[in-house]
């Protein structure tokens, strides 16, 4: 019964799997660039999930063409709006993370966050 549920909702399962992959990369990787890639995978997984939830089989994108105004003709537009907003947020935090990474790399010539921390401790600022 549960396995059948999983098979029916395999798209959602994939989204969750991606989320976990991204989350653990962001948390566990030492390399900053890999962390940022993890961040993007994690956010993309959420957008995939949202897009899935907005999709209704057999309906079209919610743009009125040929004067069809019936609600039954279109998919739910709100999740798409949320995805767009989310993408904007995700782009800005990625940009900020990359900028921080450049700063750190210029100073310490490494992308390994743990090594940077050890060196800071040695500097004993």
């Amino acid at each position, binding site marked *: 019964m549960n396995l059948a549920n999983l098979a029916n909702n395999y798209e959602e399962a994939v989204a969750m799997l991606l989320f976990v992959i991204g*989350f653990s990369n962001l*948390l566990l990787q030492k390399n900053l660039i890999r962390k940022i890639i993890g961040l993007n995978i*994690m956010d993309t997984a*959420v957008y995939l999930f949202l897009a899935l939830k907005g999709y209704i089989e057999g309906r079209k994108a919610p743009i009125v063409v040929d004067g069809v105004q019936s609600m039954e003709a279109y998919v739910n537009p709100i999740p798409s709006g949320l995805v767009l907003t989310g993408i904007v947020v995700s782009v800005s*935090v990625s940009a*900020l993370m990359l900028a*921080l990474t450049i700063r*750190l790399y210029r100073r310490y010539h490494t992308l390994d966050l743990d090594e940077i921390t050890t060196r800071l401790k040695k500097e004993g600022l």
Partner: protein
Amino acid sequence: MEFVQNFPFFSILLSLFSGPLCSVIGGKAARRVNLAVITAVGAMSAAVLNFTIRSGEAYVYLMGHFPAPWGNEIRVGVLEALMALFFCVVMFLSMIGGSLERALEIEEGKENLYYVMVNLLLSSLLALIYTNDLFTAYVFVEINTISACGLIMIRQNGRTIEAATRYMIMSLLGSGLLLLGICFLYDMTGHLLMSNIKEQVQILHATGDYHIPLLVTVSLMSVGIAIKSALYPFHAWLPDAYGYSTLSSAAILSSLVSKGYIFLLVKIFYRVIGFDIVRDSKIVNVLFAFGVVGMIMGSVSAIKEGNVRRMIAYSSVAQIGYIYMGFGIGTTAGVIASLYHILSHAATKSLLFVAASGLTDASGDSTSFFDLTGAGYRNKLAGVAFTVGSLSMVGFPMFSGFISKLLFAQAAVDSAYYKMLPALIALALSTILNAVYFMKTVIRIYTPADREEVKRRGFRNVTVTDQKAKSVALVCFIALNLALGLSSEPVVRLLREGLNLFA
């Protein structure tokens, strides 16, 4: 509709648009704009608070003329207005208190960028306080994170950049979980406005449908916000971020930024899910356990720390633990105690940061514990202020910290026995540990220093007139602390009233 009801909307927009404005004007002008904006927002919040107390009910303000469930809303009650007013006061005092440090530590020509960040931070805090839409809350959570990151790294050295990176990583993990929780909730209920979600969640809870997804959602959102507000095991970035950033950043970050997230969590508990459902879900027990551990471990780390500013930062970890323990008790009394502690901690922690910087000014800018010997004599006002802050943290009567400890203890006594004992023991232990490191520092700053040593190191005396702005800030902070401690009754009544209107 009265004109005053527009003020929450005005204050969000005013601070939001003054951000970009500050990026195109010079540093001095930006500073004036910033102080003016904080003052204006504070005045408007006071007017709103007055209005909501008189009317005795919360009101909903439509953003754009679409009614629920389509449009975006803000919702204003006593609690929201009180928080907004308080946040403005603390931010204003922190900005004045740190003006001297900002002039020294921020790179030439970049001062105005600092005020961009502060204005955006204020607007995101206000939006988190007022909004009634879950996705708007998420967006402003991210704005809050980004501007807080800017505040940390405006003083450029290896430590702050590393701290900012760690802060961003932890925050992004937290907001990822929060976003996923919001998406689940939207999926189950089909709404984004908090009040509408609550109706649907009540129905789901009554029928028992989606029991496990609902549980997962509540845990995702709670854990996400707990990570962002540096609850105990997620605090690794905190000491560096607070310890090495410029003074006003440290004061604002410790007293306001984490509190904004916690306020959002209260909102999720009361307005989105319903507190009885949260309590039944047992997630509060997890928060309780982490809060209790944090209360002890934060203080233990603070005792081991030899750098005064990092010590105060570690003490924040313990205080965040208190706040989560209050939620974890799972009664309204516990939440009121936590809300009071938000106010009390904000007033005290920023006081301690400013006072500690006054003491280090009189010790050749060294933050080392032993260099502070006798600093209380070299900078008298800062010494008194630090003592007041320490006594308040320890829970000495008259000061605000005492009242919050009292409220926590009362809430614990009225709760289930398996929570009462751990809570009371943790309170007692944590108080002793607090006393160990704060009183140790107070004794240290009032231990007369060796004259030769002072002369050799060139420590100078700092008088009140040397640092006018900082002295004004310190006096106001002390007054705020005493006011919270001595007239706690009306404040607690307002919090209780506000929490009733909140749901």
